[in-house]
């Protein structure tokens, strides 16, 4: 069963901490994405990567960075967590084909206190 795995379902971090959210896919997909999901706002793209070591900013990259050292792994980094980064974070992957759609992970609920 192919899948996208996010390492944590729930995280609680303190303001100012550096936070790492990990995502691993086993489908050999070229593209990987990080979204943030907030009620009433849907999913907003933070960063995406279409190849190893490549990254592109999405709509809301401020306060975040990413790392893709291997094809199967895409990490989201909150350099200094703030309370307004409390949210659900979704990782997704896809083939570089327009009609394929995305495969999503189960999400990480991050709370910054």
């Amino acid at each position, binding site marked *: 069963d192919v899948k996208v795995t996010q390492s944590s379902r729930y995280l609680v971090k303190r303001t100012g901490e550096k936070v790492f959210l990990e995502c691993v896919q086993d489908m050999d997909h070229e*593209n990987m*994405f990080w*979204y943030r999901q907030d009620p*009433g*706002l*849907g*999913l*907003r*793209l933070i960063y*995406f990567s*279409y190849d190893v070591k490549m990254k*592109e900013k999405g709509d809301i990259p401020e306060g975040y960075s990413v790392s893709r050292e291997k094809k199967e792994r895409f990490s989201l980094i909150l350099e200094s967590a703030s309370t307004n980064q409390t949210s*659900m974070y*979704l990782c*997704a992957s*896809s083939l*570089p*084909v*327009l*009609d394929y*759609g*995305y495969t*999503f*992970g*189960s*999400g990480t609920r991050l709370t910054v206190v």
Partner: protein
Amino acid sequence: AQTVTQSQPEMSVQEAETVTLSCTYDTSESDYYLFWYKQPPSRQMILVIRQEAYKQQNATENRFSVNFQKAAKSFSLKISDSQLGDAAMYFCAFEYNNNDMRFGAGTRLTVKP
């Protein structure tokens, strides 16, 4: 800029009945893809149905079908014979290049027994 609008934050349907979820989008592109994703309470987003813009025939997947009106930029989802397992958040999404999928704010569907 591409935008996706879901005007119904919440919908409810009686078990075995039919419900239609609305979605409109705005784009100047001529060739693109549209998707409906389902996010059950377990949170993993799954693809329900997809539609390619140049295909006039509406997509169907078992009890799920779409009404795609390209000129009106409308893409509604019809769920027939609703089941308790259909209860979820439903997101409409638009994609015209492989690295940019836009999501609506979502519609929460409740199924009443």
